[in-house]
């Protein structure tokens, strides 16, 4: 996004500071199935009834990305007048927690 830089600069003690504000927004995509597995996303189901083998990180299970979610992400970008990159990559972060089966 283009901006007029000078509005966002503050000078103090001979140092120039630039204001940068970021908003991390979590907005759930209303898809039928999950992002990486074909389980349902319906709210209010019994525990573990909408968990697939992929979700539970069973050995040998592989994620396959949801086409609709990708389309929604692109539409969101267009709606925000953002630049849509033709090439995107995934980076995978690992950490250990009981509700993160893949680790």
């Amino acid at each position, binding site marked *: 996004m283009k901006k007029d830089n000078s509005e966002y600069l503050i000078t103090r003690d001979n140092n120039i500071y630039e204001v940068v504000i970021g908003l991390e927004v979590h907005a759930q995509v209303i898809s*039928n*199935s999950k992002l990486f597995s*074909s389980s349902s996303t319906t709210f209010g189901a019994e525990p*573990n009834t909408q968990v697939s*083998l992929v979700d539970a990180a069973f050995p040998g299970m592989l994620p396959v*990305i949801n086409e609709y979610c990708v389309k929604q992400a692109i539409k969101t970008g267009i709606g925000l007048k953002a630049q849509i990159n033709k090439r995107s990559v995934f980076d995978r972060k690992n950490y250990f927690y009981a509700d993160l089966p893949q680790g």
Partner: protein
Amino acid sequence: MTIDLKTIKHISKLSRISVDDEKAKKLAVDMNSIFDFIEKLNELNTENVEPLTSVVETMLKLRVDKVISKDIREKILKNSPEDNEDFFVVPRVVE
């Protein structure tokens, strides 16, 4: 690059694998030996080389947004180390 005991303890924490002091010492020796071997890569100038993330030039496959996996709770819980019909049971997480 020398891997010392402190580093071993740090990695041990990151990877959630506990290591006693004796094992940590042996690990440090082994890892240093492996790193000496790996350091060879520094001989190469790779400044303008693109990292290879995928061996095959292909577009990521997109899955149709349809529910296929339905209520397999029994299957999911069958191998669970601690018996419970509905949940996975683990040591208390929240105090």
